[in-house]
């Protein structure tokens, strides 16, 4: 696992995981690590969006 980004890219295409979650995790990963703030923001938008759609 010296190349974690590759693993996440493989995971997106594997079909094993909920697509929007794995795609967002991948989007939050860079050479500096995983951007927790960005993921939590995405989560709050998802939760509000779902209620709004309702």
């Amino acid at each position, binding site marked *: *696992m*010296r190349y974690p980004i590759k693993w996440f890219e493989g995971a997106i295409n594997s079909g094993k995981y*909920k697509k929007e979650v794995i795609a967002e995790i991948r989007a939050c*990963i860079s050479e*500096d*690590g*995983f951007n927790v703030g960005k993921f*939590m923001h995405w989560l709050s938008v*998802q939760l509000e969006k779902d209620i709004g759609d309702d």
Partner: protein
Amino acid sequence: MGEVQKIAISGFRGVNTPPLELDFKKEHSFQSMMIYGRNGTGKSSIVDAWEWLCSGKIEYLAREGAGPQAYPHKEASEGQTYIEVEFTDGEIGKIKMEYDPNRITQPKIKGNLSKLRERIPHPCHLRYRDLTEFVYERKAEKYEILSRFMGFANALNIQNDLQTCAGRLEQELKSLQRDGDRPVEEYREASGEEPKDIGSFIKIVNIILNRQGIVPVRELAEVETSIEKLREQVEKDERSQKLSLWKGIQGIINRFYPVEDIRSNISEFQRDLIAFKRDEEEVSKLILVDLYEKGIEAIESLKIYDKCPLCDQSYKGNLIEHIKSKHGHLDELSKRRNELDAKRKKLLSSSDEVIGKIDFASSNLEEKELEPPVMQFKENLIKVKPLLEDCKGMLGKKIENVDKEFNFITKVGTKEYKSLLESKSEIKEKILRQVEILEKDELRKSLVGDFQRTNNLQKSFTNWTRLNKKIEMLEEIKNSYEKIRGDYVEETKRGVQASFDTISSDLAKYFKTLEKDSEVIADPKIKLISEKDKAVELEIIFGGDPISPAYKILSESQLNSFGLSIFLASIKNFNTDFKFIILDDVINSFDAYKRPRVIDLLKEYFSDYQILLLTHDSIWLDRLQRSFPQWIRKHFYGWDYALGPRVEPGKNSYEQIEEFLAKDNPTEAGRTFGVYLKWILQLLCENLEASVKYNRQNEYTLSELCQAFRERMKKKLKENHSVVKLILDFEYDSGFRNFCVHWKEPETPYTSSEIKEIFEKWKTIESEIECPNCNKFIRYEKVNGHEHISCPCREGLNLKSDEYY
């Protein structure tokens, strides 16, 4: 891949301008380099710059909270902070990484950096601190260190971030579940039962509507219209409207009180804060508590009580007692700080709760027509809120950053806050009186009660439904997230374990080289603790049995051997396209007698590697230079704030002595020669198994050592041996005898020519007992009943041969 040609570092950490240039070219090839310099001469800035180039950050600084803004030298202006490295490999060529003050995490890159990083999957630099961390840290931290040793730093950073995020998701879920308690409570207050589903909600609403003669509803969307019909009925009658208003206010007030009185706690906090901050200078030293703890640990472990482990300066007196007393004082201050911080956190939470209540009451009272005393209540809320928010803002800071001039007492000592706290009974009684008067009419009481009940039911049911939906969705995302995280962690662990397996045979070989006299210890292994996300144990075979964790039996020095072996084995196995290593003072972790084995290790397994070795141990440098005469040598002889390291060509002890003699400085020449001779005679006595006159201090004089060396040589080689003759001539020389007595004195009673004479005699002896092939000194061995006085390779030197007689 080719070698490193040149490293230039400018305006970075302890290096200012002009750039520090390390040119690896010697004659027609590129060589390894050794840099000798005392602590604090800027050597480690080289490793820091290298790590920055390879990974974009400096991990140990990041862990201490120092980001890229700590990289530039304070005097360096824009464009002057950079590292530039030239490689012989044309595909990489020259790479420059320049600090950009406008985008500190995005340095300006020139050259093919990604290609370089591709070739260095494993870090190729190791600091003394990395090894000490490896020795002292616990299982989880050790896993992190080992993983980073093996090039898993990025994977591990992601794993740590994912874990942090998992915690945040859990908190978010708990927070939503807590929020869900309020609508349930409100629903229960309005209906007497807990919310279940739409059907039961509509059923309850219809009972109320029926009582007020309104057509029942069939679905959720119709509830709003029916509530409007109830509102119309209430608004038709002025007194019903008034009752509705008062009951609404009653609900708000009942939710506001009880409210916490934080005045006495704030006064106590203010008092303690002022007392704590009275001595700003001492408070600023709290940062040293950890350093003192580590210092005490290091001194006790190294058992050197008269020299500072940080700067190597001698200390007159008991250094450990001195540090302990400083530590004790700061420790007391640290306890006071923690107590004060606990009070700060409690007050922060209290003020947050009061502000929350003020927000709720203010927003709900906003559009209502109010009468005294509720009108004053609302005005007080508006005045108190910003003052409490000021307090909250200040309480949200670390205790060191809380402004001692900030007056908390004034902020909460207002008459408005006092009035809010004290007017509870008056307001409640006033509202109750109004409600009782207006509720005398039963029909009105029933209508307004039903209107408010339906309203509350609908609000609480909507909130409950929305929250449930959020919780459900969050749980779904969280489960999916955990599955991804779990698989990722497993995959990382598999990778780490595979790396452990890959390096295991080299690890065992290197460990054996470093620990060759520990016959009962063998076969070191790294084992993952599979049931934990991040934990590792070291295993060793001890007397034939596996011992795990190896700490049970390994000494600190043996653990250092373990750590260095892991690092070097990882380099060997993973950096196959990049044979370059930086070792920063790692030798410091080993006992003096083990240090030559590091040389053996480098010589035996890393002769095809280019090494940049930094050390502050001058004696070891002599050994190193004998073993690797072709290496480039540099000496950092000082450090200057404006210029950085002061560099000159590195000199071994011989060269230093010759220079002092050339400058007619017999004092320094004699001191350097004395230190050198003491070390070399100790080594020879050990090699030859010579008996030295015992003393309890374990301190030996030059004459005692020389006598033991001479006696052993005489016994094993006889008096007519040419080398023995040289030794006898050296030892009985009156100049040497005089030197033995006086060499430590600052005012020496001998001249440069006297020192030169004995120095030259010793050089002649040394040239006879050092092997020109393996660069090692003679030793005594008995094999199959035959005694040998020869070098370890037995090819270059055999003092038992006839030619010496």
